[in-house]
């Protein structure tokens, strides 16, 4: 409630209040003098009257001053305003009903939902409109849409649409709704009633521009907040598979938008149908994180995390991609089975990749002979170590597809590598053509040339940025594989795009070279992973460096299917690495979902998901070529309404959402009443 003055300068007349004060102080005394023999009694009387008279005098003064101040206030034309609507809805002859059917309106509300409450209110408003009022209806769940092409006096269809209104899973498009309302009003004045729960941290702020335009065109926006008080909702904000490549954990972020602390059960459902439940304590209005460890072997696909919450069930489940989790995701191809551990790369790699033997998770490498490369599968493997393999050329194409699909390959050098068997057959894979091994120092001497400090800005070495980087200096080698495309100072003219040196030995010889191919990477370690050319496996950094190599190379790998994410009510697009095939998009309910495709060498696919869940793209009855995890819009889960629409509308034009009363006549009447009262009191006082 606010008090304002239309003529504030008139308050200066308040200085006239000094008049009655002076008059009061300058009371006249009679001049005639009368000798009186009972003055003692008069003094007693005066003393007795003094206290009573003092009170009367003050009351008189107060009445006079108040009367004058009220008269001055009346001249200043005060007016009182408070939040309120026009006396009659429909008074302007045009009404647009905007009903929020977004996800958050599915909140439970005394046996129904907020949407049913809003619908009932809208129907009641419809019944109360003056006859002949032109009415329009706009829904703002997902994408704002007019249900009536123009304003109409025929309310039957509008009533039917409201009665049959169903909740959507989309976000609140208040901005679009106001735009549609403006279009319906076609520049004429009209009332826009907005039935919404105002949920979402930016719903109102994003609509302020359109709100201002609507008001500018004569629209009277009348918010009809439909909220639960206090609001309450639990949701899984985020769920993703963690860093561990094998048997790792799913990280969950759960939010509580209610006003009370709660302990909630969160269940993670895996693609194989198994479920894992954890309990999480959620502070009021806060979030909590939880980790759920998945079994060592889980098929890849779309998993889900669900929190039990009755307030708004539609957003309880969050879908996320889970890569295939299994113990055999790293293949180590042993190209040089040594007679002693010292002569075996696999001996060191096995221990570096699975220091606990796989019993506590981590990488459990699958060691195979070079012929085992035939079993390489993008579904089962992420990274392949080719340790001093003499001739991988028979599997060159398989390796190339593996890398293009997101897999990672590491070649380590050794005495078995020859330029003839690598350069030409594996031209499409190798970061650089091999030459002959080159001794950096005498091979029989002890020690070797150490590595340069790695660049911590590189993603591969980020984990060593704070500590451990110096440990690389202890890694030495005496011999490296010579690379044709490089000299000791850097790139040559023949260097290819996507190739870079990640690490060098002191003196400039490349130690680790990377080449990106498709969605995958190929790394070439120019020394050995055993003690043949250097001492790398003996250094403490070897284990974390090897683990990091696997994480680095396998990060993009998710099996054969393309993975994508989407939001209900928003167009979701993805690109498939092939073209010319007939695709079928299946929704979480098993029904085909219409989509748009742009064919070419690659296929551009887009569709509008209406339901949350796992969508899959298939070619015939083949396994899915793409999986899409579609979720409800996260902002709809925040049901707290941080900025009421009423306040936003009032900020644009306070007159829209308030009622006013002019207080001038009241002040004048009160002033006259006080004048009358003071005259009566003064008369009584005089007597």
């Amino acid at each position: 409630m606010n008090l304002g003055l239309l003529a504030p300068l008139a308050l200066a007349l308040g200085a006239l209040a000094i008049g009655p004060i002076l008059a009061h102080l300058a009371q006249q005394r009679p001049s005639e003098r009368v000798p009186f023999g009972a003055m003692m009694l008069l003094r007693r009387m005066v003393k007795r009257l003094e206290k009573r008279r003092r009170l009367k005098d003050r009351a008189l003064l107060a009445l006079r001053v108040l009367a004058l101040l009220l008269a001055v206030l009346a001249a200043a034309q005060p007016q009182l305003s408070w939040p309120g609507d026009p006396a009659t809805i429909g008074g302007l002859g045009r009404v647009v009903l905007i009903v929020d059917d977004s996800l958050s309106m599915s909140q439970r509300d005394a046996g129904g939902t907020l949407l049913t409450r809003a619908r009932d209110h809208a129907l009641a408003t419809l019944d109360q409109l003056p006859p002949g009022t032109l009415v329009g209806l706009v829904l703002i769940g997902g994408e704002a849409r007019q249900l009536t092409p123009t304003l109409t006096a025929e309310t039957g269809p509008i009533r039917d649409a409201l009665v049959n209104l169903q909740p959507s899973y989309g976000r609140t498009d208040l901005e679009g709704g106001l735009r549609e309302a403006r279009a319906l009003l076609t520049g004429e004045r009209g009332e826009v009633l907005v039935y919404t729960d105002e949920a979402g941290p930016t719903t109102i702020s994003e609509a302020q521009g359109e709100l201002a335009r609507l008001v500018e065109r004569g629209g009277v926006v009348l918010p009809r907040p439909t909220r639960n008080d206090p609001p309450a909702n639990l949701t899984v904000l985020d769920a993703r598979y963690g860093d561990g490549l094998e048997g790792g954990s799913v990280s969950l972020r759960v939010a509580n938008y209610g006003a009370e602390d709660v302990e909630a059960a969160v269940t993670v459902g895996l693609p194989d149908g198994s479920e894992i439940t954890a309990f999480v304590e959620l502070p009021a209005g806060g979030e909590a994180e939880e980790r759920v460890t998945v079994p060592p072997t889980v098929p890849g696909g779309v998993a889900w995390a669900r929190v039990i919450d009755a307030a708004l069930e539609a957003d309880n489940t969050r879908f996320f991609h889970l890569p295939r989790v299994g113990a055999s995701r790293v293949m180590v191809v042993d190209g040089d089975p040594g007679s002693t551990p010292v002569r075996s790369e696999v001996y060191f790699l096995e221990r570096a990749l699975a220091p606990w033997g796989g019993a506590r998770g981590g990488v459990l490498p699958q060691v195979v002979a070079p012929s085992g490369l035939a079993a390489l599968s993008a579904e089962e493997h992420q990274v392949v170590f080719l340790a001093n393999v003499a001739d991988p050329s028979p599997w060159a194409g398989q390796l190339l597809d593996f890398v293009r699909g997101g897999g990672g390959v590491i070649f380590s050098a050794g005495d078995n590598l020859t330029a003839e068997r690598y350069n030409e057959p594996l031209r499409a894979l190798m970061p650089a053509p091999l030459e002959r091994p080159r001794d950096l120092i005498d091979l029989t001497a002890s020690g070797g040339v150490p590595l340069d400090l790695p660049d911590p800005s590189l993603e591969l070495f980020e984990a060593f940025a704070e500590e451990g980087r110096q440990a690389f200096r202890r890694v030495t080698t005496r011999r490296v594989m010579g690379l044709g495309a490089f000299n000791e100072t850097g790139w040559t003219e023949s260097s290819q795009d996507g190739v870079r040196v990640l690490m060098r030995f002191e003196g400039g010889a490349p130690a680790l070279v990377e080449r990106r191919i498709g969605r995958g990477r190929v790394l070439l370690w120019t020394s050995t992973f055993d003690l043949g050319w250097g001492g790398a496996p003996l250094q403490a950094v070897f284990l974390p460096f090897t683990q990091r190599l696997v994480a680095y190379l396998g990060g993009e790998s998710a099996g054969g299917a393309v993975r994508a994410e989407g939001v209900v009510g928003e167009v979701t697009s993805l690109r498939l690495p092939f073209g010319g095939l007939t695709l079928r998009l299946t929704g979480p309910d098993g029904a085909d979902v219409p989509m748009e495709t742009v064919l070419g060498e690659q296929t551009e696919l887009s569709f509008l998901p209406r339901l949350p869940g796992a969508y899959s793209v298939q070619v015939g009855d083949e396994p899915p070529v793409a999986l899409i995890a579609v979720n409800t819009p996260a902002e709809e889960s925040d049901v707290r309404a941080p900025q009421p629409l009423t306040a936003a509308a009032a900020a644009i034009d306070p007159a829209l959402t308030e009622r006013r009363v002019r207080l001038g006549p009241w002040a004048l009447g009160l002033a006259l009443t006080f004048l009358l009262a003071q005259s009566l009191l003064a008369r009584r006082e005089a007597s």
Partner: protein
Amino acid sequence: MILWDPNVLARVRRLHLLAVQTVEGLLHGGHKSRRVGANVEFADYKDYSPGDSLRDLDWKVLARSDRLVVRRYEVETELQCVLVLDASGDLSTGQGSPYAMPELEGNKFGYSLVLTATLAYYLIKQQEPVGLLVLGGSGPGAGVYLPARGGGTQLARIFAQLATLRPGGVARIGEGLNTLGPRLRRRGLVALISDLMEEPEGWMPSLAALSRRRTDLAVFHVMDRRELTLDYERPALYFSPEGGEALPIDPAGAAPELRAVLNAWLVELRGGLAEHRGRYYPSWTDLPLHAALAPMITGRRAMPDRDLGAV
């Protein structure tokens, strides 16, 4: 000599005439004169000796101690009376008295003079010695004290003092009564004629001291009805002839409040006097003198309620 002043002589004659008229009027009709204050007091015992009257024998002593003793009495034949007249400035106001004196027409002082003279005449006529103490006043009689004596000469002396007296100054009743105590050798009668316009806590203790000396106290409270009812027409500045701050008063509005104050004051006065065995005689200046004197002379009680009701 002031007594040769024709005006004074006229006043003396007027006083005498009014006093005689009043007293004779009061005593007319076969009233038995009453000796005010007369009594017979026990003096002591003496052993019985042959020839003493057996009526004087104290039989109670004989019964208790088996001794024959005779009671002896001291008979007082005279009652010392002192008239204390308030002649302060406040007495010069008032207009309701029918007892006109030259230059004192109708005011409270004129009434007080006649009342004092009448009392003096009456007491002298009763063979009592009468004295006079004037409180305040102006003129030759101001502050005068005449010791109590009997006879026509004393009466003439009192009349002469009264005839020369004019109202003025401040009475200071308490101080005056205090000076009177040592001057009274025996029990006596003190009659105070005053408008009592001094706060009672200033003079009531002095009256109490006289009372403890077993002095008979009679207070003639001189009141002007117009003053006490504020029977005035216009608002004016009211002031005391004795000095002090003037007060702006609207009579019409203040009269009810003054009436309440007056009643409370009269109750206070009566209560104080009753506590000290003093007799209170309201003396309204617009009523004949015998209205104030009759209760004293005839022994009838005054009727304060009726008097108050007239206020």
